[in-house]
């Protein structure tokens, strides 16, 4: 990549910012720092970062609010950083438009993996890929067909929609709410139990061992993640 990837790090802890900055050492990344929500909003506008790492516990504005405001005018990928035990904030931030989350403490490996997934979507082929492959499965979005071991899987319309939606956000977390309002419509936001039943059925068709899923992972209390890379 010729142009350096700009990463906006928003965290009030100088140590964390320093750690994140050092994680992105090298010429392909350029890290910009913000220590509060106001600065973050300003820098998000002026610097046009490619990825934002956003801590939810900010001194001035609530991190969820920051994500919401940025989403009003920008599709820049946002990864929220949360402390353990604040799952509600996490889900709220994801529903407000954040793209993924990392629970502190996390390893550099995890961080880089998440950022790469974000960049693949924005910097890589901007158009949605017509075919998504994971393991021995293949989802052909143009033909609306799903193959497993080269055989066409019989999915119900809802199962197909669920899978297609997760494929659109491949390797990113999708919340219950996102899935419900996309597949069933806005009125069904709270019917998580229906979602679970369909997910179970879908998993039984896709996975070799549904109790040890390789592709459709449950993120407890948050939603699901379709893993396409091993």
């Amino acid at each position: 990549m010729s142009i350096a990837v700009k990463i906006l790090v928003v965290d009030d802890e100088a140590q964390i910012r320093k750690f994140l900055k050092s994680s992105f050492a090298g010429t392909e990344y350029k890290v910009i720092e913000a220590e509060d929500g106001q600065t973050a909003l300003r820098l998000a506008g002026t610097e046009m970062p490619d990825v934002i790492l956003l801590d939810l516990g900010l001194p001035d504005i609530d991190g969820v609010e920051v994500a919401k405001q940025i989403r009003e005018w920008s599709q820049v990928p946002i990864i929220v950083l949360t402390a353990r035990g604040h799952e509600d904030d996490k889900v709220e931030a994801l529903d407000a438009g954040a793209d993924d989350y990392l629970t502190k403490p996390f390893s550099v490996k995890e961080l880089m993996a998440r950022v790469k997934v974000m960049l693949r979507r924005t910097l890589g082929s901007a158009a949605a890929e017509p075919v998504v492959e994971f393991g021995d499965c293949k989802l052909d979005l143009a033909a609306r067909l799903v193959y497993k071991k080269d055989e066409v899987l019989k999915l119900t319309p809802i199962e197909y929609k669920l899978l297609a939606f997760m494929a659109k956000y491949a390797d990113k977390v999708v919340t219950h709410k996102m899935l419900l309002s996309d597949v069933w419509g806005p009125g069904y936001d709270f019917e998580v139990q229906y979602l679970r039943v369909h997910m179970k059925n879908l998993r039984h068709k896709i996975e070799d061992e549904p109790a040890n899923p390789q592709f459709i992972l449950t993120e407890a209390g948050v939603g699901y993640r379709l893993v396409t890379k091993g």
Partner: protein
Amino acid sequence: MVILAPATLSMSNSNQTSPYLDRPLDKSAAARVSAPGIAVIITRESNIESLVREALNVAEIRGRLLYAILVEDDLGPLVDQEARWKNEVYRIAHKVKSDHIKLNRANLVENIYDYCVQFDIRLLVLERPNKRTFSLPWETNFVQKIINSEVLPPSVVIPFEERQVKPGQKHVASDWLLLIGVILAISIFGAITRDQIPKAFHLLTFILALTIVSSRISLITSVAGSFIAPIAFKLAHVAPYGTFLFEDPRQWLNLIGLLTVSLIINTLTWQVKTGLKETQIQERRKSALFNLTRDLLQKNSLEEIASLAEAHIRDVIDSDIALFVQYEGQEVTTIRHGNVDMDSSPEDRKARDICLSQGIEAGIGTQVYPLAYGLYLSLQSKNNFKGCLAVYPGSHRGTFPPDQLRILDTFGSLIGLAFERIGFETAQREADQKIRDTNLQNTLLRSVSHDLKTPLTSITGYANQLAEDPNLPAELRVETYTTIRDQAWRLTNLVNNLLSITKLESAHLDLDTEVMFVEELIGTAVSQMRPQLEHHKLILDIAEDIPDVAVDALIFNQALVNLIGNAIKYTPAGCTITVKAQRDKQWVQISVIDDGPGLPEEGIDSIFEKFTRFQQGHKVEGTGLGLAIVKAVAELHGGNVMACNRSDGHSGAEFDIRLPAVESAPIDVETS
């Protein structure tokens, strides 16, 4: 309408302005009477005895004059009725002067209003029409009209059910029949056998018969019997028979004796009967109070007590209630909403507040904020809170008669006591929790200070070495980095586990339970542990018909992760870990089984206690909290956890979490 006025009963020369009227009184009219009064409204259907007595009680308690208003109806001329009514009223409340005012019923409310203004009537006492027997529709309407009227003074409505049936009015005809029949039978028997049997025997027969009969009939009938009996005796037994003449004047003595004995027996019987009745009423009240007391003792929340109190009060008095509690330095908490909105009735709010702050009764029927819809009774409590029981007299405006007030007062005391008990219990629980928290904190502190110090010491040491010694050989450098990283992870785990156990053991944890598939729960934990499972074999064995479980997915996930993590940690690489889920009656059992060295038998009992750790040859660094978390999680979900060594001949440990199975109907979805 006939008005009897004023009955001078009990005087109170209070000069306060009329509490229900915003407009000034007609001074000249008001000047005619000396004190504010209470009017009892009587109709053809009224039970005058109980109604007037009740009104009299109300008037006496409040120190007011009593006026009687008789309402005319369409069923015929009043002339004959009027005399009866007046007599009845006079009999109960003496010295009632009467007025007679003819009323057009269309203007009934207005007429009563004029009368109330004229005599400064502050309260009306009336009787709820009897719905169970025939009652004139206009009468129901008329009572409703008075009750609902905005201009009239508040009303005390005496429920018809409370009415005591006047003894002697019931079965009057049958009483007389029995009496006459018995006397007639004995007289005829006496007339036939008077030559064979001595007179004394006949006399005794009469006395015996009257004694038996008087216990079964009303007082008036039996007194009448006492007089009839000597006459019958004279006619049947004293010569010359069938006349009132006496051959022997001494025979008079027999007759007088018979009369006296019979009257004494009547009086005694009457006393016994009255006493019995009184005892029965007392007994009923006592048992009602006993039941309430007993029930209250079994309730452990303010809400439950409120429901119970509501039910019992409804049983006795058909009224809506509200309950308020105010803890020291806090806002008023509403435990039960009444049908009166505090925000829209400032009078009620003021009455409630003064009842809470001063511990006095307020509201309708009292001197304090009598315009309020409800009556506010203080709950007598010496604890650190104040309580208030509000009673709203049904859908109408009205106050409560004294016997109901007494019951309400007693109920109030009982509820207050129950609240007080709950207050103490809560305080006790909080104190216990505090002690547990303190104990936990102490244990934590001891352990944490050790567990934190160890990794911190090595991290600091190695970090210093790296910073100060630039010539450290490369392989040593790598080893140092690795140690620092491992120790830092250990610290992280410790802190996370500490946070978890603190959260799980705090009394205020709210579980976000959902019905979950066991397969998905296991899948989530397993996929999360996949990196650590690299060197172990994993077998999943989930029964086909496994029921669902209701869990907080996030919290439960931690328990499973800890169990799998434990199995990884305490078994050498290459071992097999089996996660098994099966049904055991009403339980779902999830087991994590390994084929490692197993658990040391002597430690199994204490394995779920905090800071228990086993050292088994190889170096294991844990926080000693992992299994304590598992136990706390299982118990929070109404389940339990067990540890044992495998009993199937293989070596290895087995941990079983049992959760209540959820028998949910499967959600119907298309599955093609």
